[in-house]
């Protein structure tokens, strides 16, 4: 463990950026840890990794990691990352987004990034709420949940983020939670290695807003919820009807990767010239 901690520090900013902006007990810190350990396990060169984010609590993550960091505009992280990756295909590009960032304002970019299948790793920290702005409902807020802007209970249906990514054509899609930290680390590692667009949806706790309004006002209560609400995808069938959420790898498939296809296009164009 000591050894691992040293490796983690290697990938964190040496400038004194801590403590983070996140509330005590926030799940985003666990996601940050998972990303760092996955990167450390893969022994990636810091000079070859970029982290791109949008706006919101998750958007602040690039400050803390010693990679190229791009904190972009709300919802547009994947579009920025698309440009960066195509200009610098040698970089590993990690895109971290919240559920509002990735699926509401950035929903169009999310499905098109999946369809285009450029080699990006999208990590969606799903806390079912807009945290930074004070607890408004998001496209991932469960029906009937309370939010600042749904004081009578939420009447819309949430997106199934992971299955949306599957339908939109991503090469790899996984779902996990911050309670399942080791599984998360493993899935992120696999997603980074995957050639093509990969999505890891991570259920995370905003006990300060979502939890407080929905009878889980501590981080521990929310982690228990993740533990009890989710089951491995393989056992999902057995549990049908129990309202459980499947965890693990949804798809890991071979699809034409965009930049490789583009390189072939370049060859055709240059032959014709």
């Amino acid at each position, binding site marked *: 463990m000591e050894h691992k901690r040293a490796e983690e520090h290697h990938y964190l900013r040496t*400038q004194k*950026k801590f403590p983070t902006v996140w509330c005590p007990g926030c799940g985003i810190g666990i996601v940050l840890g998972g990303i760092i350990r996955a990167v450390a396990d893969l022994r990636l060169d*810091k*000079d*070859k990794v*970029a982290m*791109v984010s949008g706006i919101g609590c998750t958007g*602040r993550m*690039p*400050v803390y990691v*010693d*990679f*190229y*960091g*791009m*904190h*972009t*505009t709300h919802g*547009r992280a994947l*579009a*920025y*990352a*698309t*440009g*960066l*990756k*195509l*200009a*610098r295909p*040698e*970089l590993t590009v990690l895109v971290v987004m919240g559920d509002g960032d990735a699926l509401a304002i950035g929903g*169009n*970019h999310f499905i*098109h990034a999946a369809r285009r299948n450029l080699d990006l790793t999208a990590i969606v920290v799903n806390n079912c709420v807009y945290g930074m702005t004070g607890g408004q409902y998001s496209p991932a807020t469960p029906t009937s949940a309370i939010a600042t802007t749904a004081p009578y209970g939420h009447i819309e249906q949430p997106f199934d983020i992971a299955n949306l990514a599957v339908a939109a054509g991503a090469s790899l899609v996984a779902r996990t939670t911050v309670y399942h930290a080791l599984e998360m680390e493993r899935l992120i590692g696999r997603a980074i290695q995957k050639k093509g667009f990969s999505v890891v949806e991570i259920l995370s706790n905003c006990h300060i807003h979502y939890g407080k309004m929905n009878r889980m006002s501590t981080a521990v209560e929310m982690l228990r919820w993740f533990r009890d609400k989710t089951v491995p995808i393989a056992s999902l069938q057995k549990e049908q009807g129990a309202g459980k959420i499947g965890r693990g790898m949804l798809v890991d498939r071979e699809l034409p990767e965009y930049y490789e296809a*583009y390189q072939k*296009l*370049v060859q*055709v*164009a*240059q032959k*014709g*010239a």
Partner: protein
Amino acid sequence: MPDNQKPRLMQGNEAVAEGALAAGIGFYAGYPISPANEISSILSARLPRKGGIFLQMEDEIASIAAVIGASLGGARAATATSGPGFSLMQENIGYAVAAEIPCVVINVQRAGPSTGQPTSPSQGDVMQSRWGTHGDHPIIVLCPSSVIECYLITLRAFNLAEKYRIPVIILMDEVVGHLRERVELPPPEEVVARPKPTVPPEWYFPYDEAAGLVPPLVSFGEGYRYHVTGLYHDIAGFPTQREDEIEPWFERLFEKIEANREDIIQVDEEAMEDAEVALVAYGAPVRSARHALRLAREEGKAVGLIKLLTLWPFPEARIAKLGHQVKKIIVPEMNRGQMVLEVQRVVAGRRPVIGVNRVGGQMVSPYQILELLEA
């Protein structure tokens, strides 16, 4: 003479694509929209041949975002659009201003507001090009009035963007974008390369005023692992709320343009030596104005022309001089009068400044201008 320098008939939008290629464009992202489509079509064929990236994105917001991302990765990057798409791009243009990332945005203006007239000319976006994104900010806006200027201004836009780490907007109109005329492209010139830092990564601060008004920008991927944000930031690029860190940055953001007005501003003039009436024009109305000028000169009328190739920063010094130089100033525009307000502001009541306007999708007629000479 190489083939591409022989005299030939070329369209304005085509000349923009040629200018971008001459400037070393490596990345283009766009979304279909009239009357800018030819730029995308040409680059979709030409960019892959030189190993560059052409990408059609899901909308204009994604297009400008990808362009900024690619530019941070070291590519010379541009997008082209028209009014509705230009509106969608505004937030991210502001990001490029704040994060000081070079890029070129081409807006072939069409009649608006809203969907307007997709294939009719207008100059309704003059003020939007200056103030379209929220927040106080500097910007560079260039404006061609001929096909050869489309080429030269595009080339210049890429260089200015790199030199000053700022988005440069090329404000065209449908007339100039779709006009075909004879051009002879000049031999390619050297392009401004992104300056390299002279310090090692641990001493590199992308926003440090100590490194000059325009600190060098290192592309991502070159070992300088800094942070970029649209939030107010310190010299290292990390978010800050400290006024003592924000103020010098904000000051420098404006000063890098203000202090270099002479380098950025391009104004051409014709027959101004003895002129009693000055026509101040930009874009397609330059052509109406020059036609009117020639007819007027044949009748012995002392009319001159000031052509604005840079709209923003506004060429204040030259226009202010008109207040002492001529008796009357006429500003033809394909809108209800936008730049005329700037001219009036700068001339400050010393001389009458009159707008000639045409909306509804037609060029300003030379005869509209001639009528005002009589008055």
